[in-house]
């Protein structure tokens, strides 16, 4: 029986000489098989290391074997010294080669490092291979773990966990306010079930972790307890071991710190690091009036389980599916239609293998970062083409020396090795510098991901995957740029050393390799410029999109009044009073209250009742809802096109009123004016108990939640009539002076005076919008940076090729000029060939871009992947840069003095 490993090794063995293979081949294979079995028994990492060692070992000794008498040591010393001398002889060329390699290698490695920690690294817990996420299998497609669950579902799963797993746990991320005043002091919070640490196998660094006995409603025997993360412990408590037993105020409730987790544990979500973890059971303490533990339609947590040893995720899913009917039946969300109830019961649970944990970031950034990885790989290829050119040029100028060596009896292998050694030196320099650049670059990119809403932290440490990647990439790069000149040696003849000297045509015949590299470089850089064009245009399209509201200038104050016992209409009135308090602050020009603000994460929707026989699908009947105080439209710059704004007439008890946007009018009133008409909603009415709403105003469309989405129907309802407001609302504050930096403190004080229990957090509307564009901004910036880099590298390459052509055709040009060729004619002569090459490159590049851009369709906004303007513009930019890069040396050709040339000839 031959396995794949055996075949691979048999292939490796072929690198030995036939004699050695005949003598020891079988025995070597035997040794390999035995060692492989040993390594496999030790685990995946050992197996990987064994393969690395085997490949290196085989190559090393196969070279020694084939090179006959040459010992490894002799090879190392002699060649390196010569190579070092050659590399040092042209410091500018070397510097350029090393730096461009470093940028390429560093760039791909930086992105790989991020992708590695985001999607490849297993969680730093015991046996991550046995972890599964509870998800669902959609009617079409594969099981997905990206599902949120309610606490009743978790409790139902928890009570049955032994039947399909070794243990299960649930968690939810949140922001906790540690401040005991009205100012906020937000940290990264984690709600955990009592089983989380035990099932993951995370032992505390200090004290203890949260136990099952702590996860009881209202707190366990030790009361409300909290476990803090290592980073938080160092930051807040200076790493003081006496922190155990101290009190931490979370949302103004005292918690006792019982333990600190180790530094490497960041929580079950990849991308964030928790500061404080508290049991789910303490939620009623933190949110006394509207905790979510019994909420059958509050989807806020994730559930993970550890498979029993030897059980696959499929087997465990089958066991879980047997429990599904009772779990679903017991947790049915209220107020659902018969169809929705049926769907809820039928949606099959699935356990999805998740050794890498869960990561919302992975879904958001996986595709863009992978696209960027390919972009940088193109830059690396261009850099390799450049260096290949440089090395060929250098080998050409040393042609005489190389042929002389051959004539004196050096083997071709030895001379070629000499050139390879130079390439290896450059690659090693590039890889080392690239590793530094990667370490810096990956941190810089991750730092860009953090917004006010989410602090992104990733473990970007080196591991065997990153080291393997950087070595692999460097090796491939070396092969790409160092093999061509070494291969050229095989065409050299020792006789040439005796025949000519000084004036040689070219190292390789007719410079075909160099011409090919020009075409490839142009094609690759066109692709890069197209990518940069598509991504920057996407970003600017989003950043400058007419969102229907005025961007910037507003301070957004999130007010949480959960601690205040008022509810219903009284709570709405309280929000209005908080808004009034903010407006009374000197320097404040406007202060309005709303349930949500544009492009905030919160959203509310409802279904509009339509006449029977309507062509609108269920989905099309949905509309977004926002509830707001009078003056909101003016403050946000949303244009009122008909009717009126809300005012004091719209109070509890008066008829239900609504303002709708243009899209709503078009969709539900079919082009007739909505003003004065009425509509009703399906199911519980949002905002108020009114069954019927009268449209008193129509506003222009404004973006509700996503800058990328098209305008959607939206209904605005008056805050005063809202009988079921949640505990959080946003007060938008405009400053008279245009800047609210000095006003924020006064606003906080004024609101705290009105309601001392309110918990506030601040951000600006700009921050909110910028946070929504983080991904697009990052992708555009990276694409632009590497696009320009690629362009510069290509320009340098073109310059080099033209300059070389000028030098090697110096005599010819001199004669032409002596015979009366004009300066322009000479420049044209030099440019004509380059123009051909660039033309072919652009053609090839356009095809490459047209093919590659379809993969990034989902990342684009407002333009097609094959956007003709971007393609044409990129080709123009590239042609201009290429023309300039080639013109510089071509102009020098025109300055050649025919007399000098003829004299020298």
């Amino acid at each position, binding site marked *: 029986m031959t396995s794949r490993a055996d075949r691979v090794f048999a292939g490796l063995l072929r690198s030995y000489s036939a004699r*050695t293979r005949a*003598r*020891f081949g*079988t*025995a*070597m*294979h*035997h*040794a*390999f098989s*035995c*060692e492989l079995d040993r390594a496999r028994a030790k685990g995946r990492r050992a197996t990987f290391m064994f393969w690395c*060692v*085997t490949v290196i*070992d*085989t190559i*090393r*000794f*196969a070279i*020694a*074997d084939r090179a006959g*008498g040459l*010992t490894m040591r002799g090879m190392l010393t002699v060649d390196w010294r010569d190579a070092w001398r050659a590399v040092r002889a042209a410091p500018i060329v070397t510097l350029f080669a090393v730096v461009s390699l470093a940028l390429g290698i560093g760039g791909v490695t930086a992105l790989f490092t991020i992708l590695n920690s985001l999607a490849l690294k297993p969680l730093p817990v015991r046996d991550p291979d046995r972890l599964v996420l509870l998800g669902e299998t959609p009617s079409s497609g594969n099981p997905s773990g990206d599902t949120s669950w309610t606490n009743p579902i978790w409790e139902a799963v928890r009570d049955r966990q032994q039947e399909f797993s070794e243990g299960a746990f649930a968690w939810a991320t949140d922001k906790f306010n540690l401040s005991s005043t009205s100012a906020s002091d937000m940290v990264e919070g984690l709600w955990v079930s009592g089983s989380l640490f035990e099932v993951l196998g995370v032992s505390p660094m200090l004290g203890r972790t949260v136990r099952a006995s702590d996860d009881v409603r209202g707190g366990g025997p030790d009361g409300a307890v909290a476990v803090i993360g290592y980073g938080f412990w160092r930051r807040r408590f200076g790493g003081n071991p006496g922190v155990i037993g101290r009190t931490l105020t979370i949302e103004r409730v005292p918690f006792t710190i019982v333990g600190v987790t180790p530094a490497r544990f960041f929580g079950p979500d990849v991308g964030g690091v928790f500061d404080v973890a508290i049991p789910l059971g303490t939620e009623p303490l933190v949110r006394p009036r509207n905790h979510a533990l019994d909420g059958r339609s509050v989807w806020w947590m994730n559930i993970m389980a550890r498979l029993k040893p030897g059980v696959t995720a499929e087997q465990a899913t089958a066991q879980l599916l047997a429990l599904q009917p009772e779990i679903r039946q017991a947790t049915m969300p209220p107020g659902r239609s018969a169809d929705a109830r049926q769907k809820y019961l039928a949606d099959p649970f699935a356990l999805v293998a998740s050794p890498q944990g869960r990561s919302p970031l992975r879904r958001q950034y996986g595709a863009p970062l992978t696209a960027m990885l390919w972009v940088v790989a193109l830059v690396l290829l261009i850099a390799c083409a450049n260096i290949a050119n440089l090395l060929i040029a250098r080998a050409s100028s040393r042609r005489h020396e190389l042929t002389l060596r051959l004539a004196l009896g050096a083997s071709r292998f030895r001379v070629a090795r000499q050139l390879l050694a130079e390439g290896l030196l450059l690659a090693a320099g590039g890889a080392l510098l690239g590793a530094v650049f990667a370490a810096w670059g990956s941190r810089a990119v991750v730092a860009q991901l953090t917004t006010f809403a989410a602090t992104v932290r990733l473990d970007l440490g080196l591991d065997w995957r990153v080291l393997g990647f950087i070595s692999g990439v460097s090796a491939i790069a070396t092969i790409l740029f160092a093999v061509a000149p070494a291969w050229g040696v095989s065409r050299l003849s020792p006789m040439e050393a005796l025949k000519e000297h000084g004036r040689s045509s070219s190292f390789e015949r007719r410079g075909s390799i160099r011409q090919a590299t020009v075409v490839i470089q142009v094609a690759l850089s066109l692709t890069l410029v197209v990518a940069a064009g598509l991504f920057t245009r996407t970003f600017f399209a989003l950043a400058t999109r007419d969102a229907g509201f005025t961007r910037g200038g507003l301070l957004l104050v999130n007010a949480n009044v959960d601690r205040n016992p008022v509810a219903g209409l009284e709570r709405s009135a309280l929000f209005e009073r908080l808004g009034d308090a903010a407006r009374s602050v000197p320097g404040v020009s406007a202060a309005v209250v709303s349930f949500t603000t544009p492009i905030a994460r919160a959203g509310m929707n409802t279904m509009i009742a339509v006449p029977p026989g309507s062509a609108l699908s269920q989905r099309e009947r949905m509309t977004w809802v926002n509830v707001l105080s009078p003056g909101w439209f003016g403050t946000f710059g949303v244009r009122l096109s008909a009717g009126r704004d809300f005012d004091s007439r719209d109070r509890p008890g008066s008829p239900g009123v609504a303002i709708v946007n243009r899209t709503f009018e078009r969709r539900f009133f079919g082009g007739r004016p909505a003003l004065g008409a009425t509509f009703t909603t399906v199911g519980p009415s949002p905002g108020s108990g009114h069954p019927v709403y009268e449209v008193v105003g129509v506003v222009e469309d404004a973006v509700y939640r996503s800058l990328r989405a098209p305008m959607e129907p939206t209904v605005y309802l008056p805050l005063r009539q809202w009988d079921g407001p949640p505990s959080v609302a946003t007060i938008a504050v405009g400053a008279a002076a245009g800047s609210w930096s000095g006003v924020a403190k006064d606003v906080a004080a004024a609101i705290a005076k009105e309601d001392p229990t309110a918990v506030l957090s601040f951000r600006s509307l700009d921050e909110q919008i910028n946070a929504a564009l983080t991904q697009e901004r990052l992708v555009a910036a990276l694409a632009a940076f590497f696009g320009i880099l690629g362009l510069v590298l290509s320009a340098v390459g073109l310059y080099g090729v033209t300059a070389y052509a000028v030098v090697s055709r110096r005599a010819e040009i001199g004669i032409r000029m002596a015979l009366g060729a004009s300066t322009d004619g000479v420049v044209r002569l030099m440019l004509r060939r380059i123009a051909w090459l660039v033309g072919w490159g652009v053609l090839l590049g356009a095809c490459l871009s047209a093919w590659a851009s379809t993969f990034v369709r989902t990342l684009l906004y407002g333009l097609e992947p094959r956007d003709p303007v971007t393609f044409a513009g990129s080709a123009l930019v590239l042609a201009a840069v290429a023309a300039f890069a080639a013109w510089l040396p071509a102009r020098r050709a025109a300055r050649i003095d025919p007399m000098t040339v003829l004299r020298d000839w």
Partner: protein
Amino acid sequence: MSKTDISAPLKPAVFHILLALADGPVHGYAAMQRIRERSGGSIRLSTGSFYRHLSKLLDEGLVEEAAGPAGDDPRRGAYYRITAPGRQVLARERDRLAALVAALDALRPASRRGRA
């Protein structure tokens, strides 16, 4: 082809290969295992390096192929044993080391006194 110089100290790898074969004929992988065990894991010859040294020793006649036990698994490859010249090399290395040890032993009292 450079000869294994028998007057100078043997390379550790060569020494250990000869030592492993001195116990009787063994096949290649078993010899590698013996070396690893005997050196307590401190000497780990890779497959490539082992066979490179072995090839030299064969060429120099210090080691020769030997018949394996009847019915042995042919995949293990040939068996090897040390030759008479090979034993001489080992013996000389033994003498050299013994002389060194003796020289060190002679120093020992002096160094003890020095420390006291």
